């Protein structure tokens, strides 16, 4: 706190001081640093294999610049360089047709659909559970502890079994994967909504009571508006969790389609570039979805007059 106060007068002298004061400047520097570390690590990790190659090809006295450029252009590097991953993503998204099985957009679309379905079911279930828990003392005392301990069960670990079992009884396709996403995303929504629906002050609840409002009216006019900010915060967490669920849910389906299948296929055949491109695509997807919810949140809160 005191540092910024001291730094302020010197801003006129140092042209970079203003740039570095906010968050944009530091974030850019850190991102650039991450890329630099990535390149250095790529060279360092790929060197042993490249040396091996030179030895076999009887090449001696390879200049360092050539070593660097060779390590960054291997076909199956231990750690691919950022530009290799970027080229792979470009090739598999823009250059390929969307319907092609090699298109990353096709695989992302499959993952996205089960993520969204699971997220919708999970959010609906979470809201319903929260309404029940807030309005019933029995549910609060008996169900709430189990909702919390349900998350200590590593559901991701049994995801393969759920999918295999559901396949065995004839349910296949989108729904089994979506169920894993549902399980992961309902929890943050339930906990957040319970907190949100209970957030109106007792004074406000008493006011509703003096108006002789029924529980339904109190719910729609007081509790729900109060819970909206909590709902959006927990929906962001739920969305991220549900993407993880969808990706892990794709692992046991025999690597057919989806980002998880790309990861598994890449690890079977040692296609590191493919793994990294799928990973970055998943990261991009998560970032976009969370940002989208953030946008809806801002619009909604603005219309409700609750914008901070």
């Amino acid at each position, binding site marked *: *706190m005191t*540092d*910024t106060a001291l730094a302020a007068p010197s801003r006129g002298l140092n042209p970079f001081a203003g740039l*570095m004061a906010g*968050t944009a*400047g*530091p*974030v850019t*520097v*850190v991102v650039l640093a*991450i890329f630099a570390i990535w390149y250095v690590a790529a060279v360092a990790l790929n060197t042993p294999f490249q040396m091996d190659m030179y030895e076999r090809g009887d090449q001696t006295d390879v200049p360092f610049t050539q070593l660097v450029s060779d390590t960054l252009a291997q076909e199956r590097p*231990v750690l691919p360089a950022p530009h290799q991953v970027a080229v792979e993503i470009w090739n598999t998204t823009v250059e390929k047709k969307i319907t092609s099985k090699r298109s990353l957009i096709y695989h992302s679309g499959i993952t996205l659909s089960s993520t969204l379905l699971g997220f919708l079911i999970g959010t609906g279930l979470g809201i319903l559970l929260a309404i029940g828990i807030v309005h019933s*003392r*029995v549910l609060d*005392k*008996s*169900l*709430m*502890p*189990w909702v919390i*301990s349900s*998350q*200590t*069960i*590593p*559901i*991701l*670990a*049994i995801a*393969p*079994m759920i999918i295999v*079992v559901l396949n*065995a009884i004839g349910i296949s396709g989108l729904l089994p994967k979506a169920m894993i996403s549902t399980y992961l995303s309902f929890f943050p929504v339930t906990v957040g909504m319970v907190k949100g629906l209970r957030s109106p002050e*007792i004074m406000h*609840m008493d006011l509703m009571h003096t108006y002789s409002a*029924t*529980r339904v009216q109190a719910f729609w006019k007081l509790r729900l508006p109060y819970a909206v900010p909590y709902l959006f915060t927990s929906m962001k*967490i739920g969305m*991220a969790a549900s*993407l*993880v669920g969808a*990706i*892990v849910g794709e*692992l*046991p389906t025999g690597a057919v389609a989806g*980002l998880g299948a790309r*990861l*598994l296929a*890449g*690890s079977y055949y*040692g296609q*590191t570039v493919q*793994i990294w491109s*799928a*990973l970055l695509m*998943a*990261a991009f997807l*998560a*970032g976009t979805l*969370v940002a989208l919810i953030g946008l809806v949140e801002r619009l909604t809160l603005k219309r409700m007059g609750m914008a901070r």
Partner: protein
Amino acid sequence: MSSLVDIRSRFDTAALLAGGILLCVVIAVFSTAFEPDRTVFDTPRLALGFGFLAILGVRYSLGFARHMAGDVALGVVAALSAWMLIPVVHQHVGEAASGFWALAVAYWLASWLFVERMAAWKLTNPSLTRAVNLAIPIVFGITLLVLWELAAKGFGIPKVLLPAPSEIWVRLTGSVPILWADFQQTFLKAVLIGYALGCGSAFLTAIAIDRVPFLRRGLLPIGNLVSALPIIGVAPIMVMWFGFDWPSKAAVVIIMTFFPMLVNTVSGLAAADAMQKDLMRTYASNYWQTLIKLRLPMAMPFIFNALKINSTLALIGAIVAEFFGTPIVGMGFRISTEVGRMNVDMVWAEIAIAALAGSLFYGIVALLERAVTFWHPSIRGSRG
């Protein structure tokens, strides 16, 4: 709040549930219990359970026994009827008919009534209240297990799809050495080592970052972003780099636990307010003294929040990483291979172990939190 609710609820839930029990019992009398044509009274145990439930339903509907002793009797009856129903259904797997299901529903309503009554008890002794608050979810869980058992056996669901809890228990107790070896490999090696290294390094990094405001502003948004990413995807890469044994799983756990811990610790270190820091300045305390005596204690609720989140993340990370390649031991390995061999009861036994380990791990961290942050309002408020 609860007084408002009581005034406004127009119907009596307890009477409704008791009426439901009676209705189910009446249905049970006039229909077959098991295919082809066994009635309730052809099976002595079933008749006994039926009698208990019927008497109970009548007493409650007429308004007797609405006191604590009556409630305890209710719990005993529910337990007895479960004890009667389970062995019977084991003798007639897959033959259950409407009479049996009516009794099962009656049992379910009885234990619901029991939970409902328990939740309404007003006890003066705080330790008794805590015991009851603990007992309610346990009774609820046992009820679910009993219903699972009754449904799995009554419908004759094949073991491959959904084994009954009793079968899982038999498998669990029958293969302790295998389960122990898996637990050792996955939990004691990968999870604990990865958790300690991940949380520890994130903690030290957070303290280092905290000294440089520039890094704090730059790393925090990125840390928040990374926390939302599907980090579990690095599992195949780690398996490629560190081999099949536990170090690769520990590496996945380290990466998964690092960012939640980093973000929480950094925001926790900012939790001490200016007045308190000024006070430390007037005491002429240096950076380290302020850190240890003021800022770290203030950061503890945040740090424990991260530790709790990480306790479940670590187990998930280690198990999922084992899907990408492992030696022939480990919980994730066992789950994926036993699914392939259709030994679903073994998978469920492994899940039960994982759930137990995860809950215990979480519980220990939560207990530690209570001991360390005893001064925090959220802990003080929940006492007594």
